[in-house]
């Protein structure tokens, strides 16, 4: 049975705070206390708009919070009722930014279906198996870079570099643009972080990111048109949808999505994974007993633990119902992935890292809808290659102190995190 729906403007706000800047600047552990209460008592709840001092939308009256695993999966599987085309973040971003940077993730069928199909071939399990040697070589060269040092900032020297090289290899981005690309991709969510902004005005900084990424995209579009290569950029300039070539702006937007989604997700999973392996030594010991055999299962738990994307938004296409609540056309519906991945209805003791967890029905890759992560297999292979390389060559690598966390509501960001280990040269000399 559903209750009569109060008008959006008159709906009372839930007392739990999941909208404030302070809530998102805290730790996942603190946020989980609030989510646990919502999951138990008010699984679908209406909240005041997120407050951040930028992208304030006077028409934004709030959002529905979807916190249970089952409800989240349902929302992802009802793309006709819950649209992506109005934006996928809490904030009502300017349309120019949506169009320029969110590619097909902020599209609905039928156009989403056609663009997605174009990209699919490059990301299948079999295609990724073909480039696995490459992924392993990238992991090796990154660990080479720190192996003799004994200490490192794990984020900038390892976690950020792994996805940067791999996604750039696939898309076809030359070495000279890679650091710029990886750095700029942080502003997709980091525009609210004074540590990243360094005095810049947030809106201006986001537009600077868009301009920078698009300039590189347009340079590559021209290059591939005159000389095709075996990469995604070439596939995009040659692609036809409904008998028409994609426009340069379409390609640049897809390009922006690929590099943001490719860089900022695996980076977080790698960092949170390293922290978890430090915090749960028993689990690490279990893993090390059979690293090759156990890593694939362990990686799934590391991904659940990290939940690199914490939220995705949908917008109600029409009046509809969800979990007994009447949802009004145009309502924002936010799915909380970090909450769903801690749902005790699905996970036994979710607050404990359990590297042998199987089955592991985490929703970190989406929840089974049409926007299911295109790069899921790429992410798995990268995490596999990176942790195998790290744990084999630097077996005592561990984090030191607490990581510095981001303050966004989209990516579960680790800004920096110190690690220490016995340098490889020293360790092998001692063995001799």
């Amino acid at each position, binding site marked *: 049975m559903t209750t009569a729906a109060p008008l959006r403007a008159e709906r009372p706000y839930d007392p739990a705070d999941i909208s404030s800047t302070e809530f998102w600047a805290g730790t996942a552990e603190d946020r989980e206390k609030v989510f646990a209460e919502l999951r138990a008592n008010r699984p679908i709840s209406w909240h005041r708009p997120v407050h951040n001092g930028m992208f304030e939308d006077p028409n934004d009256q709030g959002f529905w919070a979807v916190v249970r695993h089952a409800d989240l999966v349902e929302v*992802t*599987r009802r793309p006709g009722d819950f649209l992506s085309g109005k934006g996928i973040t809490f904030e009502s971003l300017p349309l120019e930014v949506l169009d320029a940077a969110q590619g097909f993730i902020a599209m609905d*069928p039928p156009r*989403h*279906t056609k663009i*997605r*199909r*174009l*990209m*699919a*071939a490059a*990301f*299948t*399990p*079999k295609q990724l198996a073909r480039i696995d040697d490459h992924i392993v070589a990238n992991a090796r060269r990154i660990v080479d870079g720190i192996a003799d040092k004994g200490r490192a900032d794990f984020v900038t020297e390892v976690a950020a570099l792994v996805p940067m090289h791999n996604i750039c290899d696939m898309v076809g981005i030359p070495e000279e643009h890679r650091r710029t690309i990886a750095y700029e991709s942080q502003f997709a969510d980091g525009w609210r972080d004074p540590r990243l902004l360094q005095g810049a005005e947030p809106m201006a900084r986001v537009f600077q990111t868009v301009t920078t990424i698009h300039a590189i995209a347009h340079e590559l579009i021209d290059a591939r048109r005159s000389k095709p290569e075996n990469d995604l950029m070439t596939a995009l300039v040659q692609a036809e949808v409904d008998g028409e070539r994609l426009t340069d702006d379409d390609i640049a937007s897809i390009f922006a999505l690929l590099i943001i989604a490719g860089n900022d997700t695996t980076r977080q999973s790698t960092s949170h994974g390293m922290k978890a392996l430090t915090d749960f030594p028993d689990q690490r010991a279990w893993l090390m007993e059979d690293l090759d055999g156990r890593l694939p299962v362990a990686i799934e738990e590391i991904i659940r633990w990290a939940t690199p994307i914490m939220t995705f938004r949908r917008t109600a296409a029409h009046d509809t119902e969800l979990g007994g609540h009447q949802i009004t056309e145009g309502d924002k519906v936010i799915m909380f992935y970090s909450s769903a991945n801690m749902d005790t209805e699905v996970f036994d003791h979710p607050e404990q890292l359990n590297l042998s967890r199987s089955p592991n029905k985490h929703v970190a890759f989406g929840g*089974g*809808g*049409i926007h*299911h992560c295109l790069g899921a*297999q790429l992410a798995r292979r990268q995490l596999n290659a990176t942790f195998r390389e790290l744990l084999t060559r630097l077996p005592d690598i561990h984090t030191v102190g607490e990581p510095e966390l981001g303050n966004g509501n989209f990516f579960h960001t680790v800004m920096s995190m110190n690690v220490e280990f016995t340098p490889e040269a020293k360790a092998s000399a001692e063995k001799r």
Partner: protein
Amino acid sequence: MKIIVDRTKCSSIGLCEATAPDIFEIGADGALQILLDDIPETRRVDLEQACENCPTQALSIEG
């Protein structure tokens, strides 16, 4: 058994391939290919799983 693919719905998301890579494959052109014409009864559970997992309900079993 046979697998029927509704080509107007299939978006090549590849969850079927993740379930049964010897039966489903997203090809080089991005289109889903069914690798086995006649699928033995022993694989029914896998096929049902693939159909249920499909985000666009593009798959069905015949026979």
